[in-house]
């Protein structure tokens, strides 16, 4: 009897919790992901991936929500979110540009591509333009070394990039045109 009572209570809790007070639809996406993983704690990284995909970055509110739903201490969630390079606790730009700085790309001049982009946008690697239009990031190796130097523009890999080509590409996004 008692165990059934607990089960019902857990179920009620979950249902209540599955509605984020803000009513933000993106939390629904998280709910679905967590439910599919049966709220298993080892699904944390997967859930954070999903969260970042839907929210663009991991805001504190999201981390709190995930911690509560997976019954994990916030410190653990925070610890994981900060350990992995791909998770970002800061908002990222509308467009993203990732320059590979792996060995093959480096030997073939990706450093020059990066500095050209930095000069053109006035931001450094790891930063987002003031208007939030573009984030400039770097990668350790994209596994596209055969076409080095490689740059990823909004998720699409482009190979054998020169500084000019890379700048042309971000100009198409309307970045730094007036400069």
């Amino acid at each position, binding site marked *: 009897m008692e165990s059934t009572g607990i089960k019902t209570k857990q179920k009620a809790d979950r249902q209540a919790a599955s509605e984020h007070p803000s009513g933000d639809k993106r939390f629904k996406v998280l709910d679905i992901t967590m439910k599919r993983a049966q709220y298993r704690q080892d699904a944390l990284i997967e859930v954070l991936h999903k969260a970042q995909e839907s929210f663009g970055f991991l805001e504190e509110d999201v981390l709190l929500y995930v911690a509560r739903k997976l019954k994990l201490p916030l410190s653990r969630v925070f610890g994981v979110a900060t350990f992995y390079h791909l998770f970002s606790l800061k908002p990222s730009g509308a467009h993203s540009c990732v320059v590979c700085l792996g060995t093959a790309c480096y030997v073939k001049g990706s450093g020059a591509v990066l500095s050209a982009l930095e000069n053109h946008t006035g931001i450094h690697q790891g930063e987002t333009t003031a208007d939030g239009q573009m984030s400039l990031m770097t990668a350790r190796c*994209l596994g596209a*070394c055969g076409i*080095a130097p490689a740059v990823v523009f909004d998720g699409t890999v482009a190979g054998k990039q020169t500084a000019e080509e890379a700048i042309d590409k971000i100009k198409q996004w309307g970045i730094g045109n007036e400069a």
Partner: protein
Amino acid sequence: MDITELLEIAEKERSHQKPIRVHCCTSTGCRAANSLSVKKNLEGAVKDVGLSDRVQVVGVGCMGFCGNGPLVEIDPQEKLYERVTPNDAASIIEAINGGIATAPEGDLKHPFFARQLRIVRENSGKIDPESIDEYIAVGGYQPLYKVIHDMTPAEVVDEITRSGLRGRGGAGYPTGLKWATVAKMPPGQKYIVCNGDEGDPGAFMDRSVLESDPHKVLEGMAIAGYAVGASEGYIYVRAEYPLAIERLETAIKQAKKLGILGSQIFYSAFDFKINIRIGAGAFVCGEETALISSIEGGRGNPRPRPPYPAQEGLWGCPTLINNVETFANIAAIVREGGDWYASIGTEKSKGTKVFALTGKIRNNGLIEVPMGITLREIVAEMGGGIPDGEVKAVQTGGPSGGCIPASLLDTPVDYESLSNLGSMMGSGGMVVMDKETSMVEVARFYMEFCRGETCGKCIPCRAGTVQMYHTLTKILKGEANQTDLERLQALCDMVKHTSLCGLGQSAPNPVISTLRYFPEEYTTLIKPDVLNGKVAVSH
């Protein structure tokens, strides 16, 4: 499914295939050069010229010559086209009937192709990685059937041991021995883990195998599961490889649907399921204990070994961890026998190895060669040397490896020879450098990498890599003196011998090897007044 059904699928697929297949590479490298549009236009052209009953356009995996992509191959006419643009498509199809193609023609007799021996990559660039039927048509999943029905688990382990296969993830631990250790653990929950983290910069072999022939890896894992008594497997792929992840997901779904993965595989008592886990950008997660912690949803911090994962791995259970390429060798070994595999390669390094040949070299791409081939054969013959200049060094083994000078290019490529030179086989990245590359810069580059990738758990690695990085920067700026250089050497020694995991233990290698082979590059940067025995004065 039983063997007749499997053979039926193979037969049906083969009879449906058209006599002429136009292979268009749809892997990452060629995709980045617009190969999807090429493929679309090829398909359109086949229809336009009314060849649909004879000619079939197939999106295939990586053909290896990624630096010259997009690649299109006409099978069985053995014609290869390079740097194909969508506009070339129509002429390529017309060339089948004697027209002239506008795209540059590649030379399949070039050493780049001719010197290869393909086992891991036998299907790569030949079949559609998104079709399980095509995999079955080339004999896929028959080895799995064979082990389940005709072999005991112990016999499978023996076969792998006999093959002499060593782990392709870097250290070269004998695969058979590892399998035997897990198999010997008491029955109960055991796991198979496939390490697809591939964090080494300059390496993309595993990516290519996963993208080009995902079923081969799944089959290898399932055979391993049968051999060691595991019913569940995880494949850990880095998030930077979205296409590999997508194709693995497809492959797992297809295999499940046919009853090749899941419960009672091939009507036997053997169950095996495979889950995908996606990394989140941390090089250290390639280290096996860190990888386990990451699969469990935690930070990727390594832990001391023993206990080894074979004894206590995922969730405390015995776990077999192997690299993607290691698993991709398994089906062929079962099919052809361990003795066959052992007849390839050298005394202590058996079989073939896939290398990513990149950097300042004419022919960029992936090659699979028998162990024991010399670096010179790879770089000068297959790679075609440096376009205009001379080879200065070849970097192998990534951050755990070192730079091998041009004077030692006649070294055979095997585990022992490379480590005797202070480098490593690593996962198979080979970055060729020319005279313009500064070896001190390269050393600093790797130290910047390790500094950023250290997990921070132990001090020698966390603080040591930062100090080494600063010293190298100081040297490059011409601000260092002899004492700094000596301190750098002492640091190398300390970090190497006192770090907890392989990352720290091998982080100094690029510095040690450049100091060993290119000492003059360091000394010319050292303040000359100090070399004369005077005290350094800062101005």
